[in-house]
């Protein structure tokens, strides 16, 4: 039943207008509320001049207003661009510049960053600001072009649509190795293909209570939101600060009686570390899914043994192929801590290929690059044909079709399932986000005091994953403490990219070719982590 994403809500609003759609703290919206509010805001955007294909930036914390804004942008025929309001303003500027948004929706929660933008980048937002607060806007330095309160007078009936399911629905910006974030163009049809498969596989129904745990600029949230709306389920928005306190997070799942939870391994291992889960906890939970990074086997065993009534499903896939492309439901708690959990079999409509350097299939069991083709393959990178052409390749055996080369290394096991063994390049996963170490290095080199800097990732034991480490040589031998570098870097890149370990060096170790010896750097940080007095 492919169509446009906003139609999921319209259909629920027609059939069950009073059914609960969205819960956030004390706020609760029915499907009827969601439909009417998004219709009104969509009309306001249309009256404000929005046309099919225009980009609408959403600089909004996870909230019912943000969800209404996503739907309204789609109903106005536009492409929404969720931007992390926690990101440093320098990165927000890079994303807004690249996306070239017709409007930027902001709320009270973003006042510091909005004032930063108005004082330093007025050209980016002048005439484009939409105030999403219900109250009169405070002094933003620039008069908002539109305000949510203006939409109150708009009719709340459905708008006609000239959109097509092959149109982009949103741009999701991910880390780019040269320091410029890349905007993945995700079409309506990419998302509906995954939603149809995943909802059927998980048996999502109107009486389900699901959660939106991931941030809205993160592609896993796309299934949380549209999967719940397609099923007519009740979506519970999880505030980011809950992630900090394991006791509160598990209490949230208990008290909301979640029936399905889509999480990331970093959160699950964090809860494991504090032994936050009781045996038989979350009695209403039916399925727990994770994606985004490897879930360490000891932590998975912990979860499965405590929750024997829950199905545990591993999903795999980059943003470029929409949410996930393969799945594996773990049949029993793994007993061997070294046991590798497969990324599994392709979701319906997807295909995983393991290819060698010449793009020919490897033999079963041999390691090659995991490439993906099928319904999830996105339209490519926004206004970047070169990067798109490099990562999305034509399929030799299927004219007109493209596949995405993931950069992940993997093999097909004797069980026919695909196993992932790591990366071919310097991209890593940090708390579910893919991070290009090159983006961190590029940011470091813009700091005036840095002579040279290198960023490496080291594996950590047990429940951990990888740790980002930075070594640097100051320019002109000035005194430069790690905290000074960290502070400078925090103004340029998001927190999840900030290195955890630092080393001030007089000069870098070099290999035989005269290049920075990254292997030696990793060893240095490994020793520091293992040694006393750290």
């Amino acid at each position, binding site marked *: 039943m492919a169509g446009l994403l906003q139609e999921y809500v319209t259909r629920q609003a027609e059939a069950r207008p009073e059914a609960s759609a969205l819960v956030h703290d004390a706020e609760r919206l029915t499907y009827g509320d969601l439909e009417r509010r998004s219709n009104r805001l969509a009309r306001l955007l249309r009256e404000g001049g929005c046309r099919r294909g225009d980009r609408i930036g959403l600089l909004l914390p996870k909230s019912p207003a943000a969800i209404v804004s996503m739907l309204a942008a789609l109903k106005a025929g536009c492409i929404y661009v969720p931007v992390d309001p926690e990101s440093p303003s320098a990165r927000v500027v890079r994303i807004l510049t690249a996306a070239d948004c017709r409007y930027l929706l902001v709320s009270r929660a973003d006042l510091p960053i909005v004032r930063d933008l108005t004082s330093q980048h007025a050209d980016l937002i002048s005439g484009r600001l939409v105030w999403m607060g219900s109250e009169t806007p405070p002094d933003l330095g620039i008069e908002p072009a539109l305000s949510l309160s203006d939409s109150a007078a708009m009719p709340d009936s459905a708008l006609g649509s000239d959109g097509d399911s092959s149109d982009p629905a949103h741009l999701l910006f991910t880390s780019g190795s040269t320091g410029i974030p890349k905007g993945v163009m995700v079409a309506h049809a990419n998302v509906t293909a995954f939603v149809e498969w995943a909802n059927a596989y998980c048996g999502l129904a109107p009486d389900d209570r699901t959660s939106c745990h991931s941030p809205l600029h993160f592609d896993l949230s796309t299934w949380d939101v549209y999967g719940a709306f397609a099923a007519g389920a009740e979506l519970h928005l999880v505030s980011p600060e809950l*992630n900090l306190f394991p006791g509160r997070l598990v209490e949230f799942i208990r008290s909301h009686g979640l029936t399905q939870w889509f999480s990331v391994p*970093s959160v699950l291992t964090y809860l494991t570390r504090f032994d936050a889960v009781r045996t038989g906890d979350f009695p209403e939970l039916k399925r727990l899914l994770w994606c985004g990074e490897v879930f360490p086997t000891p932590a998975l065993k912990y979860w499965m043994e405590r929750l024997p009534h829950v199905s545990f499903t591993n999903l795999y896939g980059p943003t470029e192929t929409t949410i996930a492309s393969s799945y594996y439901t773990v049949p029993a708690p793994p007993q061997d801590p070294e046991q590798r959990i497969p990324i599994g079999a392709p979701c319906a409509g997807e295909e995983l290929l393991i290819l060698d350097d010449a793009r020919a299939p490897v033999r079963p069991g041999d390691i090659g690059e995991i490439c993906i083709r099928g319904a999830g393959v996105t339209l490519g990178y926004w206004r970047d044909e070169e990067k798109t052409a490099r990562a999305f390749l034509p399929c030799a055996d299927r004219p007109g079709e493209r596949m995405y080369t993931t950069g992940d290394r993997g093999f097909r096991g004797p069980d026919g399932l695909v196993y992932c063994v790591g990366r071919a390049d310097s991209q890593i996963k940090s708390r579910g986000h893919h991070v290009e170490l090159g983006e961190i290095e590029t940011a470091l080199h813009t700091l005036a005091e840095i002579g040279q800097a290198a960023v490496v990732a080291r594996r950590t034991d047990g429940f951990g994953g990888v740790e980002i480490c930075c070594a640097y040589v100051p320019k002109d031998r000035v005194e430069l403490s790690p905290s000074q570098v960290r502070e400078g870097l925090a103004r340029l890149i998001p927190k999840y990219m900030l290195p955890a370990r630092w080393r001030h060096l007089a000069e870098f170790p070099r290999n035989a070719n005269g290049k920075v010896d990254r292997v030696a750097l990793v060893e240095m940080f490994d020793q520091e982590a293992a040694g006393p007095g750290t």
Partner: protein
Amino acid sequence: MIREKVAGIFRDKLHVDVPSDDLDLIANGIMDSTMLVELIVHLESEFDVTPSLDELEVENFATVARIAAFVESRIAARERG
């Protein structure tokens, strides 16, 4: 004394300059889960104090001053036996 040591952990181990002991580390987006885990490791090695699940709350971890007060109360409880 303990407060200075906690501030020292932030400065020298976590490499974060916290301008004031009363600055809300959570509301200001300074503390994330990775940093909290690191902090707890250092509290264990420096003071032999490990927070329980119930103690891991905003009230105990929002500021340097509150972290220090929490550590002090745990040490006092231990000394009382």
